[in-house]
């Protein structure tokens, strides 16, 4: 029989200790044996979890699971504990000497919380929940709701340190992490049908907030009601149509405006620099703006003259993606904008893009009417002095 101290060195020193605590005016002494068995249960379950998981199992938290004295006003209490029914979980009904717990921790919890059997059978489950319910919950009472051993956001971040660092250091913050249910606005801490324990697919989660009017960013700027925008604009960008907001946005925070995962030009004009388009080049070929000639990379070409190159790839005043495209959705094909901003008054100048079977045209906006054909035979109109591009 190993000495308790040796077993406790297996990473759970904190939970197993003999101590004195007040309880309704009485002092109770929690037995070492009961919690020791609890620790043993943890060790066994952790080993099982390791067998199932390809990824390494994170070291679980060390929690003090002893009851909080009533004088400290617990916020939540477990009904059996509150009812004094220690023997539902322990060997004895005696609060001063409850004895060992009757089963391994999770098996014991599932006796009453048997609906969690179904929950935990979801495709993706939280290692902490699989290993041991007491990774996050105190089985007696707690200073937090839901018997949580710590405030929910802090509890998650105490293990998820990478996210914690990101949240702390991000220049652009996401309110979803600090408001309402915090992490649980998007994640289910037990199990889910979506990776990363997301309660729904990213788009469905995002529009939960960003599908309303009046949502503001951290600087107070009103953000687009995406539900409304998408309902009114049927031509959607691939990731939007695929309902994958996280393809471009980092939900935990970041250093780029609008929580973009990588750089994207915020301006209408910019000298061409591939770095500015890092976000776009996660999916789109850089050659679409690098190659002056192509017959395959884009349909926006006049014969083999690549018109993306013509518009974007300039040392000065190159048009950025946003000059012609809406990033989320538009009424026109290829997310071509209806209009572009002109001057400082907010006046919107119509683009007048028309798509044809063999190409398209833009009329009377940045330049006079120009048409293009993406057949190999160039059909470009003759350029006259009056048709020189003008600034929008």
């Amino acid at each position, binding site marked *: 029989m190993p000495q308790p101290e040796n077993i406790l060195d297996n990473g759970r020193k904190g939970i197993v200790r003999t101590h004195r605590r007040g309880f309704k005016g009485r002092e109770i002494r929690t037995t070492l044996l009961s919690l020791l068995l609890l620790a043993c249960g943890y060790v066994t379950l952790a080993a099982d979890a390791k067998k199932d998981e390809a990824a390494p199992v994170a070291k679980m938290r060390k929690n003090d699971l002893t009851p909080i004295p009533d004088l400290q006003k617990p916020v939540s209490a477990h*009904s*059996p504990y509150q*009812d004094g*029914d220690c*023997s*539902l979980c322990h060997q004895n009904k005696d609060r001063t000497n409850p004895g060992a717990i009757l089963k391994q921790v999770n098996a014991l919890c599932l*006796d*009453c*919380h*048997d*609906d969690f059997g179904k*929950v935990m059978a*979801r*495709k993706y489950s939280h290692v902490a929940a699989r290993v041991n319910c007491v990774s996050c919950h105190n089985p007696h009472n707690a200073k937090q709701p839901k018997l949580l051993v710590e405030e929910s956001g802090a509890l998650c971040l105490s293990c998820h340190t990478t996210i914690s660092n990101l949240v702390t250091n991000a220049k652009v913050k996401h309110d979803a992490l600090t408001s309402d249910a915090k992490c*649980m606005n998007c994640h*289910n801490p*037990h*199990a*889910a*049908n*979506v*990776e*990363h*324990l*997301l*309660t*729904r*697919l*990213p788009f*469905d989660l995002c529009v939960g907030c960003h599908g309303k009017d009046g949502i503001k960013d951290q600087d107070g700027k009103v953000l687009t009601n995406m539900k409304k925008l998408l309902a009114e604009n049927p031509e959607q960008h*691939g*990731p939007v*149509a*695929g309902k*994958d907001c*996280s*393809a471009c946005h980092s939900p935990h925070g970041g250093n780029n405006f609008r929580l973009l995962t990588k750089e994207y030009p915020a301006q209408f004009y910019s000298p061409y620099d591939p770095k500015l388009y890092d976000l776009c*080049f*996660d*999916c*789109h*070929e850089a*050659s679409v703006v690098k190659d002056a000639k*192509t*017959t*395959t*990379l884009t*349909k926006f070409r006049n014969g083999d003259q690549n018109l993306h190159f013509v518009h974007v790839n300039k040392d000065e005043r190159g048009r950025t993606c946003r000059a012609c495209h809406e990033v989320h959705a538009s009424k026109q094909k290829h997310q071509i904008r209806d209009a572009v901003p002109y001057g400082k008054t907010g006046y919107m100048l119509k683009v007048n893009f028309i798509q044809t079977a063999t190409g398209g045209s833009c009329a009377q906006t940045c330049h006079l009417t120009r048409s293009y054909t993406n057949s190999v035979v160039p059909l470009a109109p003759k350029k006259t002095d009056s048709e020189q591009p003008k600034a929008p």
Partner: protein
Amino acid sequence: MRRLAYLAAGGMLWSLSVLAFANVPIGAVVENVSLPTLTGAPQNLLGDTNVSVFIFINPELAHSNQALAQIAACEKEMTGKPVHWSAVVSDRISRSKVEAEIKSVGLSMPVLIDQSDALYGKFGVVLHPVVGITDQNRKLIAYQPFAKVNYKAFICAQVRHALKEITDEELAEILKPTAAVLGGEASVAHRFLRLAEKQFQVKNYHQALANIQKSLEKNPTAAAHSLQGRILAAQEKSAEAAAAFEAALKLDPKDPAALEGNKGTKETAK
């Protein structure tokens, strides 16, 4: 209810079917081509199998890199099934770079070299990575763009659906999984019921009744009323027990415990 689920599944699949290659819509027949591969010997884009899966990738782009490992895992999972797999990369991309990436993720499908992006242009690919799936008649039946979340599940489900291993409804459930919302009143009520059952077993009738009352307040079920009846009967409160059993039978006329309890209380009354 089932009809509604089918309608929802159909709606989901329809909304996904609007996504496709710019030049090859869903339902179009894909022309088979033979292209040189990384290993040299030319290979067909599509096979003679029930299902062909082709993937346009560019290992120089971040999302293609993220996707490759998941595509490789799906390919492995589908080993032995009548599926022809092929990956397509542009000849502009360094061969050593492609080889290194393919090796690192363990992709075993042939990698076709798209010379001068001819196939890319023919399909109108636009985004990388993207997966196309054809049936045995070489008709394009599915198009799956990259997704940061659940990508492997999406790809595998699309292939299984093409193989007719899963139904439209099952595919829709994978493409738009049921929300995993936390708890709810019914769930809490169920826990009070289970606790009351345990307290009843150890003859702690007072607490059992208190907890069954909490359960009933949150979600009145036949099981909760029935247990309430059994506790009251054990306390020899026959009239109240009979009322509880009646309440249970109103919700579920076949509740066995309520039927038996009701019979018992009537006999006691006699």
